[in-house]
């Protein structure tokens, strides 16, 4: 089976929810940017995998082609909660792995509303929100974080430090929604949404899109694109194995651990070999959990990771140097490909002020609640 490479990849600058163009135009922007990144044309693409959640029944992929070139290629529209973009990318990877195509386009795009996600009504009888606890995302991830507090004594301040770090990183990323330093006092004193998550510890709802052109090894060589190509060393998707508290407490840990184990095996590397990580910091509490889930440290050591700065730019394994979902923004269906864009940019040595020096191996991780976990390990190509 051929190795699969990313040859073109880009993302739009993430913008305030509701201010972007229509979903097809937004997706078309990133698709064209990714094609331009490798100098290819839509006519050369053999298939399109398109990730979008909010309009999952509305043929978004086909509408993107109706904007940039209707060539008759197969289009598959993917929805997998916040793992949607990673799922579309993985389907493109798998199609090339299977030998069906040599050049495939993957697009992730989302237009977001403002405000709280989750917990909204539905069902028969009376509304359950605020009666049977909370189904809002900030509360659900607060509870997931409190499980870490229960086991290891992780503090509100440690969770808040995640937000300080990611906001700092975003000041060096022109494509981030925000580029604002947020000191620890600002984060901790921001409006409390669901303890221990304040407003600045919740991801930002934005409009955005990201796209990637994937190619087989044969095609990369034929087109002379190996110099800036990024090798996909592992692509893994898992769902949530049964856990005893599943029915009331979505489990983001087990599916991540399962995916990480498979990804390291597939790539033939260990967590220690990874130079940078873009992980699913949908809430500050979540990021802490994933240091351990991804094996970046041992169980119970995540608090120390954030305290010592090991996960900040300049540290042993910088996490979310893009600014993360907390500051760059989280357009659900685009996030999985935007993370791959960030890691690819570092592996190409093109990340400017936020460049992780000598980056050779990077990992991307997303979680779709309900649940899906997507992990990719990417490698710099030694030309």
């Amino acid at each position, binding site marked *: 089976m051929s190795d699969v490479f990313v040859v073109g990849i880009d993302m739009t600058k993430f913008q305030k929810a509701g201010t972007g163009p229509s979903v097809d135009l937004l997706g078309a922007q990133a698709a064209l940017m990714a094609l331009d990144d490798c100098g290819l044309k839509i006519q050369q693409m053999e298939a399109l995998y398109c990730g979008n959640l909010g309009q999952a029944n509305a043929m978004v992929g086909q509408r993107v082609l109706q904007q940039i070139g209707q060539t008759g290629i197969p289009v598959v529209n993917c929805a997998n909660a916040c793992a949607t973009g990673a799922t579309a990318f993985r389907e493109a990877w798998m199609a090339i792995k299977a030998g069906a195509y040599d050049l495939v386009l993957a697009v992730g795009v989302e237009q977001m509303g403002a405000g*709280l996600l989750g*917990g*909204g009504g539905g069902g028969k*009888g*009376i*509304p*359950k*929100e*605020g*009666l*049977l*606890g*909370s189904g*809002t995302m*900030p*509360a659900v991830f*607060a*509870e*997931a974080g*409190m*499980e870490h*507090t*229960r086991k290891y004594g992780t503090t*509100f301040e440690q969770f808040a430090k995640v937000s300080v770090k990611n906001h700092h990183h975003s000041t060096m990323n022109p494509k981030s929604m925000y580029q604002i330093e947020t000191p620890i006092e600002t984060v901790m004193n921001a*409006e*409390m*949404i*669901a*303890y*221990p*998550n304040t407003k600045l510890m919740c991801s930002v709802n934005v409009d955005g899109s990201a796209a990637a052109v994937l190619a087989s090894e044969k095609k990369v060589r034929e087109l002379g694109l190996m110099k800036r190509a990024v090798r996909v060393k592992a692509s893994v998707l898992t769902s949530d194995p*049964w856990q*005893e*508290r599943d*029915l*009331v*407490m979505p489990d983001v840990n087990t599916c991540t651990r399962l995916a990480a184990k498979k990804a390291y095996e597939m790539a033939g590397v260990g967590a220690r070999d990874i130079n940078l990580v873009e992980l699913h910091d949908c809430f500050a509490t979540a990021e802490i959990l994933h240091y351990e889930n991804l094996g970046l440290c041992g169980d119970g050591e995540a608090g120390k990771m954030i305290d010592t700065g090991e996960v900040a730019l300049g540290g042993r394994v910088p996490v979310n140097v893009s600014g993360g979902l907390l500051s760059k923004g989280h357009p659900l269906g685009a996030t999985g490909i935007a993370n791959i864009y960030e890691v690819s940019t570092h592996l190409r040595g093109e990340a400017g002020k936020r460049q992780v020096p000598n980056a050779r191996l990077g990992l991307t991780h997303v979680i779709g609640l309900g649940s899906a976990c997507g992990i990719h390990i990417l490698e710099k190509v030694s030309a």
Partner: protein
Amino acid sequence: MAESSASAKKPLPVVDFLKLPDSGDPYLEGHKCQACGAVFLGERAICSKCGARNQMKAVKLANTGTLYVYSIVHRSFPGIEVPYISAIVDLDGGGTVKGNLINIEPNPEKIRLGMPVEVVYKDALGRKDREGNSYTSYFFQPRR
């Protein structure tokens, strides 16, 4: 649309797994897989832990348990009174349930992870459905 006849009716359970017997006290009902012991809330025929079919048996869940984790919710949807404590409770003998923790200050200094709690049954905060029916809900409170 007889408001009077609706209000005369007895309250409905807020969820299917809350049982309100004609005689006897309210209780939460679990469904336990006889093959692997997994406990579920609500009726089902197949166990998603082990895949066994038609091995579910209804069991009465305990009214005591311990607080597993919580969040204090300060921002919710319009019309929903805040703050409130969203709590996940492990019931003694099996079963994990989510609900509001009441009769304790919504202050992290006052709430202890692992604290013993009990299940109490009361009116569902005055919420009624479109037909005007009242509902009984379950809540958690610190165990004395």
